[in-house]
């Protein structure tokens, strides 16, 4: 029969399995999406979710199975949860400032005339964007 310990261990193991499936979905997004910005969307959000679920599963498993409350796992969870969105934002910002082009079929780029302005942008696109935003 299942007691509370067994049920909590199963919850931990299924959480780890869910984390691995989310990570696979994130990796397929990294392969199939068209440019850097959509790829950073796939990589940052879902892999943060995956590592949170996996480390939480490990924490619950060690807590129930061994009676061992691991402070290091809690620190790892908090650290990854803080730093993963920050690093995704930094890489995407660096990519935009290094003039990595957007994919075909992207929408209106409102940041481009503000950030780069008159330098090196073709005048038709700049005039078009300025007209739309005034």
């Amino acid at each position, binding site marked *: 029969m299942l007691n509370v310990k067994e049920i909590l261990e199963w919850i931990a193991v299924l959480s780890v399995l869910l984390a691995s499936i989310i990570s696979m979905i994130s990796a397929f997004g990294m392969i199939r999406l068209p440019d850097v910005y959509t790829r950073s969307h796939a990589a940052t959000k879902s892999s943060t979710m995956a590592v949170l679920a996996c480390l939480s599963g490990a924490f619950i498993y060690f807590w129930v199975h061994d009676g061992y409350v691991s402070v290091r796992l809690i620190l790892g969870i908090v650290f990854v949860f803080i730093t*993963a969105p920050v690093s995704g934002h930094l890489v995407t910002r660096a990519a935009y400032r290094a003039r990595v082009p957007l994919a075909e079929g992207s929408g209106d780029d409102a940041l481009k005339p503000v950030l780069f302005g008159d330098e090196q942008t073709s005048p038709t696109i700049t005039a078009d964007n300025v007209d739309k935003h005034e």
Partner: protein
Amino acid sequence: MKETILLLALTFFMIAIGLLLYRSIVGPTMPDRAIALDTIGVNIISAIAIVSIILSTTAFLEAILILGILAFIGTIAFSKYIERGVIVERKGDS
């Protein structure tokens, strides 16, 4: 049964790392490679947690912290190099 599920999850993480390795090798631009390497580091953290569950030891949990810190600092260095062209800015001369 539980060990089988954990090994299956470890296999999924390894497949994800393989796909991200493809992206970090053939990625068209430099920020693609930086994002792929950051995600590889995060997936390795998860894989270490699963391995330490399977081996039922708590000796690998420091490696999780160290890898998290190293992946974050590495990504920051990459993004700063991509944006500015230098990593350590020296004020004054140059």
